[in-house]
């Protein structure tokens, strides 16, 4: 067991080093100069002398491998470095943003999972009925709507027309509701379709036909179907969690939610390499850990050897 865990940790470290090297290399190759971005961020021109001095100060004149090596050794020591954009330490920035995004992402995920699970079960139980058709239409429409459009529509109706919420949200529970809804609505549509397909696939198996033939109650059959589908559902959750952690930038910007997605988008624009690299390390670790957990859970739930 210990050997297995160590092997997984070692794999994780190797993947992270490879990932960080490629991201560092891509940023090095891509056009854009952090010093120039910083000095001209308000559209004011600078002289070459000033630009060179800033490049020197930020360490941008050093060779690629030296820069990558310095960054890697800093990370090993737990030092994420200083932001190119504003000279602030990177770690507190990332951790603060990560915490905020985690609240938003996990709340949205919970809302989406519960809602879509109920709808998917109902849809399967009443296959081809009115409820199933309504749910299918809802899942199709909500899955098709982009986040930003849902956000603006929600703001318009709930903040302006119904005056239920302020447009300028604070970082409290009330401020969380609209961004959660904006993230959840398309996700619910996506989850319903995936869960419904998985449940229906499971329903078509022989053991379900056997249970039906023996007169087993529908509720018990559904319980078994759901239990046998959990592995797939965990995979969906794992993938979606990673996506949410890094991909809610539009919602964060519109609702002024200072999460990590918005921080990283601003950092990419500013070529703030220390923040981008810190993000890659943290998100890479989160992705890999979540996927490892999903792997373990899937295996525990369905211990049949993979064919």
């Amino acid at each position, binding site marked *: 067991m210990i050997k297995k865990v160590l092997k997984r940790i070692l794999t994780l470290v190797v993947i992270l080093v490879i990932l960080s090297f490629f991201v560092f290399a891509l940023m090095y190759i891509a*056009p*854009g*100069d952090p010093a*120039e971005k*910083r*000095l*001209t*961020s*308000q*559209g*004011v*021109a*600078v*002289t*070459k002398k*000033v*630009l060179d*001095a*800033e490049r020197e*100060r930020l360490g941008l004149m050093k060779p690629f491998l030296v820069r990558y090596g310095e960054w890697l050794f800093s990370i090993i020591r737990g030092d994420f470095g200083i*932001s190119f*954009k*504003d*000279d*602030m330490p990177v770690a507190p*920035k990332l951790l603060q943003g990560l915490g905020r995004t985690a609240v938003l992402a996990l709340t949205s995920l919970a809302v989406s999972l519960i*809602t879509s699970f*109920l*709808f998917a079960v*109902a849809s399967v139980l*009443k296959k081809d*009925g*009115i*409820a199933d058709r*309504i*749910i299918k239409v*809802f899942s199709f429409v909500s899955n098709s709507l982009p986040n930003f459009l849902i956000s*603006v529509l*929600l*703001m*318009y*109706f*709930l*903040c*302006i027309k*119904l*005056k*239920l*919420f*302020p*447009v*300028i949200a604070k970082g409290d529970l*009330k401020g969380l509701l609209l961004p959660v*809804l904006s993230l959840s*609505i398309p996700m*619910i549509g996506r989850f319903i379709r995936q869960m419904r397909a998985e449940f229906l696939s499971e329903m078509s198996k022989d053991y379900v036909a056997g249970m039906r033939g023996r007169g087993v109650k529908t509720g018990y059959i559904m319980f078994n179907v759901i239990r046998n589908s959990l592995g797939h559902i965990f995979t969906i959750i794992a993938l979606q969690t990673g996506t949410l952690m890094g991909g809610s930038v539009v919602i964060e*910007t*519109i609702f*002024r939610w*200072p999460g990590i997605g918005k921080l990283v988008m601003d950092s990419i624009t500013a070529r703030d390499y220390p923040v981008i690299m810190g993000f890659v390390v943290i998100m890479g670790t989160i992705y890999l850990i979540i996927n490892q957990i999903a792997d373990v859970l899937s295996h525990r739930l369905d211990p049949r050897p993979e064919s």
Partner: protein
Amino acid sequence: MKKKIFTAVLTAILAVSTVGCTTSAPDQGTTAPETTQPAQAQTQPEDGGNADTSSAETVSSEPKILKAAASFAYGSIDVHKEYYGWYTSIYGVSEALFKMDENMSAAPCLAKDAVADGRVWTITLNDGGAFSNGTALTADMVVKNLDRAAQVNERFAYLADFDMTVIDEKTITIDTGDVYPTLKNDLASPELGMMDLEGTTDFDNAPVCTGPFVIKSFQPEGDVEVVKNENYWGGNVKLDGAIFYYMQEDDPKLLAMQSGEIDCYNSVTSAALAVYSQDPDQYRVVSIPGARLQFYFLNEKTLDDAVREAINLTVDKDAIAAYLSGTVSAAVGPFNPSAAYGKVTVPAVDTAKAKEVLEADGYTPGSDGFYEKNGKKLTISIKYYAARSLDILAILIQEQLKAVGIDSVLGVEEDPDSTYLANGDFDLGLYCMIADKAGDPFYFIESVFKDGSYYDCNGFDDAKCEELIGQLKNETDTAKIASLTNEIVQIAIDDNAYGFAGLFNKTTVLRAGVTGFAEDIPFDFYGIDAQTDIQ
């Protein structure tokens, strides 16, 4: 029966989830109106709900708090670092020795005068100048501030080369080494705002400055709240405070304005302008030509004289400005035409003449309607980046050129400075920058027209121009500066090396009754001051 009940319940759940699942929260219904100050509710009856006499009576007793949206926010408000001074200036917290006025002149602020005698400037401070903690602003503190700005801000590192001497409590001399005509303008830069360097304990979060407001709360990269500086040296401050909400997106700003949660903001989009213009009783929109210039480089290394001339005769700046519906004004040169150094001329749009110029140079219309020469089609490469409406500008220019028979290919880059401006890989390269930093035309001329400058990317090189730039650098007489500037810009225009498309308007929307949000000053770095008020 079970089926029907189930279907009904399911449909109800679906309907509730679709509209938001939150209509049952009664306390939320009171939140949005709470955020609107009673003073503002007078101009927005639907917010107050009961805009009656009793609510009107409470207006005068309530503190006057202005609520504004800010498009940028940073991790620090250390006045001297980066561009943070722009924001402390907008928040009404910091002041520089001079302040740019609506005529693009450096007007007295903390200093009452600056006089140059050759390379030595004598600066006299205002008598009452003091920080919010009551400490008087002294000449010694000014020198310390300038020294610190030179140390912490690369763009002001040149100040370290100047020899600054404290003459007395209120007088400083600055020996600039060489003649430096624009020092007064430089001293109006918000990054050179004055801080009490001994009284400030937290430069990043709570600098002690001289402005009419002091920081109440500062969220790094978030909202900022200021309150009236009770010790303001410049007299009575009309507002009790202000809140600046960090809002990057345009739609939420419009919605927040409509819901009464903010009172004003800058950089209004054309879509929002259309909404505000329908309700002039509620909203006042002020639009003035700003200092941010949309222009294009014409590459002299890849385009011959006739093609460059034809392009400039074709590009219709008025049509572009009209299309961008109020967000830009058609430019003539790089500077505001109302400034003394903005008096240049360009030939009127004349597509027939553009064709004549091309045909005189040997171009003939091809079978597809586009000009060609020696069997080679005239196709130009237009490079742009998708910001400051340059993407729209690129498409409009492409369409206008197509109408006269010049084919073009659009190429978009994310970072112009590191791509087409750096390697010269363009025929027509679009760019946007602040042309007039602080009433100082030399800055743009030195950055763009001078041989070997940062934006020397299109092969423009003129001996007469270089000579005039050399003269301008050392010129201190205002009238002569304007004259030399106009002469230099005219050479660049006549050479068809550039096309100055538009000056971004500084467009501000204010709720009715709100005044003094620097809406009449073309610079981006001013906001509230002692005179800002909510009626």
